[in-house]
């Protein structure tokens, strides 16, 4: 059974706009990646070329959602190294952990914008983006470039938990 917030899908999607996502990503970047090259937003949608890694966190509640972070595989290790501020060799677990934390930080802040949100899931890492729920809509998207690598941040939100 789900809570009825009295909002339709479009209203919920409107709670999370591209600008809000961009602000969250920018704040995260300044906080943890301020010592490396800036993340440059793209002016039009860009597809992250394969092979890629995708970190995602789910948002439960009346209007379930999914926050995904797609990065080129070649960018994943430098990104993790930047977050950890480590020059040495990183393990796959280090890379997955770092990407997961990026998705977690964005997901938590997105959840705060969604009415009647429930719990934030733990981050998951995959080699392809997870399929969002069939009744989900892309509420916000940010395509950006870092050191020549494309990254895409997407927020999927459902109109209802049904």
């Amino acid at each position: 059974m789900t809570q009825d917030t009295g909002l339709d899908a479009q209203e919920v999607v409107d709670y999370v706009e591209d600008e809000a996502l961009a602000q969250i990503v920018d704040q995260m970047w300044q906080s943890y990646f301020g010592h490396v090259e800036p993340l440059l937003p793209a002016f039009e949608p860009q597809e992250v070329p394969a092979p890629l890694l995708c970190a995602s966190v789910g948002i439960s509640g009346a209007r379930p959602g999914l926050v995904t972070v797609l990065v080129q595989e070649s960018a994943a290790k430098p990104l993790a190294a930047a977050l950890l501020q480590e020059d040495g060799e990183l393990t796959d677990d280090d890379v997955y952990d770092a990407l997961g934390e990026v998705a977690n930080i964005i997901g938590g802040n997105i959840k705060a914008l969604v009415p009647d949100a429930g719990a934030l899931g733990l981050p998951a890492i995959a080699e392809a983006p997870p399929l969002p729920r069939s009744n989900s809509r892309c509420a916000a998207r940010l395509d950006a470039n870092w050191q020549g690598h494309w990254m895409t941040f997407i927020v999927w939100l459902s109109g209802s938990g049904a």
Partner: protein
Amino acid sequence: MRALVVDDSRAMRKIIAGALRKLGYEVVEAADGAEALKVLGEGPLPELATVDWNMPVMDGLTFVTQVRAIREYRSLSIMMVTTEAEHGQIVRALAAGAHEYLIKPFTVDALEEKLALLGLLPEVTA
């Protein structure tokens, strides 16, 4: 001073522990609430625990609740450091016994401000 950093993300533990070590803290780490309780049981009791909310095995809120039920740990100051940003979550954590709440992403300056509010910002000597 001694701090316990509780977070399931190694990257986040490193960021928080690094900032605390620069301030002169001796830091121990735990990857979830259950591991943190074990660390506390082994002593000595730290002055500060920074605690993430969403973790496997035992989440941060459960950890805070359990710590607050143990009389010997009452001097431990707890700061939630989490991506949970809703007002209701902050209220829940403070009601459970956390003393401060820091939302990720955070800057080192913000962490230091929270430590100052707790009276746990060491005087760093040049």
